[in-house]
């Protein structure tokens, strides 16, 4: 506990404040229907994600990594449950699950270079091998695309969060959480852009989210040991990645024929709730480590 709340906890409180804001907004709009229906579930998921982020940042890896691994497993499982998979893809699905500890191990021992080597080899070269096992190749490309997309979202992207675990990156995970929430809340309130619907309000949501994330990045980055200008740039990049992630997840949900209610509150909700955030994780990591060390 002392480890959790020791040191500078201002970013933890900032994250808690952001969570409170989204929870209050979700509570106030819970009966409005439409795009607001997704807010309570999204806010609930973020309480879990924020807990994992804080634990990754401040607690023992033996506590934080199993939690992160379970979160990756549960989201991947939910994705495979809604994505059409062939019966013979089951071994590739198993390998995808097995890949989770393999991906997290380099992060656990702090070997970033090993992580960057293991991910492409394990995920992108070995998983397809299990898809071609057997005789018939009918539907192979479709299966491969679906399988690898799930692995990219829920193993590769989330795996980057584990790389922040450790004292040298103290506070960055909390900052990441705040920036994602700041980018995503205005977008969710304004609605996502859809073909054939007015684009002005969604565009306003995206722009407000960008300003909010950039401003918060500028203000909060020094608390994580980053120069304020780098924080602003990180906030801007996170909001761009969140926007792209939201567009991709909506398109994938549409292609998976998830009805609006399934994509908002049902089984498919994990994808639409998590993908914008996980999309931003590698972007934030590479910016912070390579351009704003």
């Amino acid at each position, binding site marked *: 506990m002392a480890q959790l709340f020791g040191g500078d906890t201002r970013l933890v409180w900032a994250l808690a404040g952001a969570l409170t804001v989204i929870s209050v907004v979700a509570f106030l709009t819970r009966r409005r*229907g439409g795009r607001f229906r997704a807010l309570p579930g999204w806010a609930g998921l973020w309480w879990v994600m924020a807990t994992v982020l804080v634990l990754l940042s401040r607690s023992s890896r033996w506590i934080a990594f199993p939690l992160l691994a379970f979160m990756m*497993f549960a989201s991947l499982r939910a994705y495979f*449950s809604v994505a059409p998979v062939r019966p013979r893809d089951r071994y590739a699905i198993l390998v995808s699950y097995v890949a989770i500890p393999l991906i997290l191990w380099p992060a656990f021992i702090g070997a970033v270079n090993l992580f960057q080597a293991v991910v492409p080899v394990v995920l992108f070269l070995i998983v397809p091998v299990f898809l071609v096992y057997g005789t018939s190749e009918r539907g192979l490309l479709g299966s491969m695309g679906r399988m690898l997309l799930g692995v990219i979202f829920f193993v590769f992207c989330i795996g980057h969060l584990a790389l922040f675990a450790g004292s040298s990156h103290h506070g960055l995970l909390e900052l990441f959480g705040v920036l994602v929430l700041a980018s995503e809340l205005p977008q969710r309130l304004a609605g996502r852009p859809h073909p054939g619907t007015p684009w002005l309000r969604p565009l306003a949501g995206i722009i407000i989210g960008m300003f909010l994330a950039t401003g918060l990045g500028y203000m909060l980055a020094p608390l994580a040991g980053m120069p304020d200008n780098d924080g602003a740039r990180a906030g801007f990049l996170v909001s761009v990645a969140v926007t792209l992630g939201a567009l991709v997840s909506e398109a994938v949900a549409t292609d998976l024929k998830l009805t609006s209610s399934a994509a908002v509150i049902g089984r498919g909700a994990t994808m639409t709730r998590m993908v914008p955030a996980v999309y931003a994780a590698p972007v934030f990591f590479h910016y912070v480590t390579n351009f704003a060390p």
Partner: protein
Amino acid sequence: MKNFLRTVALYLFHLGFVRPVLTWIVGVRYRRRSLVPDGPCLVVSNHNSHLDAGVLMSLFPLRRLTRVHPVAAADYFGSTLFKQALAMWMMNGIPIQRRPTPGQDPLQPLVDKLNQGHSLVFFPEGSRGEAGVVARFRPGIGKLVRQLPGLLVVPVYLAGPEKIWPRGQTVPVPLNIDAIVGKPRTYNPEDGAREIAEQVQHDVLSLAPPPPPPPGEAAQPPQHVAVCGLDGKSRAEAMRAIATRLGRHGTALGLGATLIEASPEGVHETSAPIAHMPYRAWTAMLARLIGANKRFSGPKFSEKIEIARLSEIIGERRSARFVVTDGSALVDLSAWAVAESYRGVFDDRELNRVVEYLAGKQKIPWGKWWSFIRRAPEIWLVNEWSLVRPAIPAVLVLVLPPVGGVMSALRSGGESLEAHQNEEGLERLQQAYRRIAELLRRRHRVVITEFNPLEQGIEALAETVEAELLRQGDRPEVCPREKR
């Protein structure tokens, strides 16, 4: 001692393995679990995997575990000691002979257990079968039900186990499972065993989630027709005629006092009224609580809400090509409000806002709450409680017979007239309907068709609506039946 050991094994296995695995590894989602009765019952479901029994047993609370028995095939689960221990001890199963010897009643042990107040988990398909395929239910379930009249049968549909651990696979793969519980019911023991089995199968399959739409372009939402106005009988007849006519071009659902399903194959009408949904009671209660019964009786108000909700669900699921409703929560409630409470007060802009409040596009601001609660509580109720978001119809049929005729029909009915049922009140209501219709025409491009039952034929009206919808829909206009 044997019973004690058996109970310990059962609880250890369920607490230490079955429930944690189902919760954390598989992630089962139970829907309407509370429908499982407290007393003895027979849980029946489709069967595709060894996981099914565990999922169905975990529908019951832990304290009832010793009194719940999955029915297991004696030939399969008795083949080795391991399988026997697993099925009969760890899972508390009851063996059933799938090929009984002559004179042996394989169902007798099950009947005994049910008579002792225990519950059973039963798979009427008899075996796991092909993954994702629900085989025909065997008549054994019917025979069991016939032996125990009044037995509560709980249908459950399991989606997911067939992907996790289908027959022929040795390694289970973690994926999510949905266990959808249906309403417990009894069956008529005088029906034949085969007939009962078919009814049970129908009840289980009716819980299955709708299949994903075929690849390609997504189905279009249905086109809505609302038949509103003063004369209830003419409205119902017009709704029926329009739904029947539209049924030539695809599935058309008519929602009124009863449900009409018209399709190129024919027309079916339910004999029971559709107004028996569970939420009817609480909608009526809410309406009574805030006094929203001034113009509609509580049941009539909730019937309107129900029809609108059904229509909303059909629209979301794309379950029909056309939906024709007798009345419209959107048009009727706003017309009543204008005629009774807000006459002369609203300009067009405010009236449009009322339509948007009813359609759920805007929330009534706090500052206007009191005004709405006092003068048009139905609108406040629908909006603030999000009871429904009635669709704006593509075509609105206004049934507007001469007021004199309506009054004489009401007087000849012999029932006491309500306060608004006089020439002046009905005239005002007709004007309000016309005003709302005009607004919908201008702002929402709704096509308005006025209908006077004394002057026009219902078939001509149906033909007009049909032509208009086909023009709007830009869909194939050839009736398959006529084509043949």
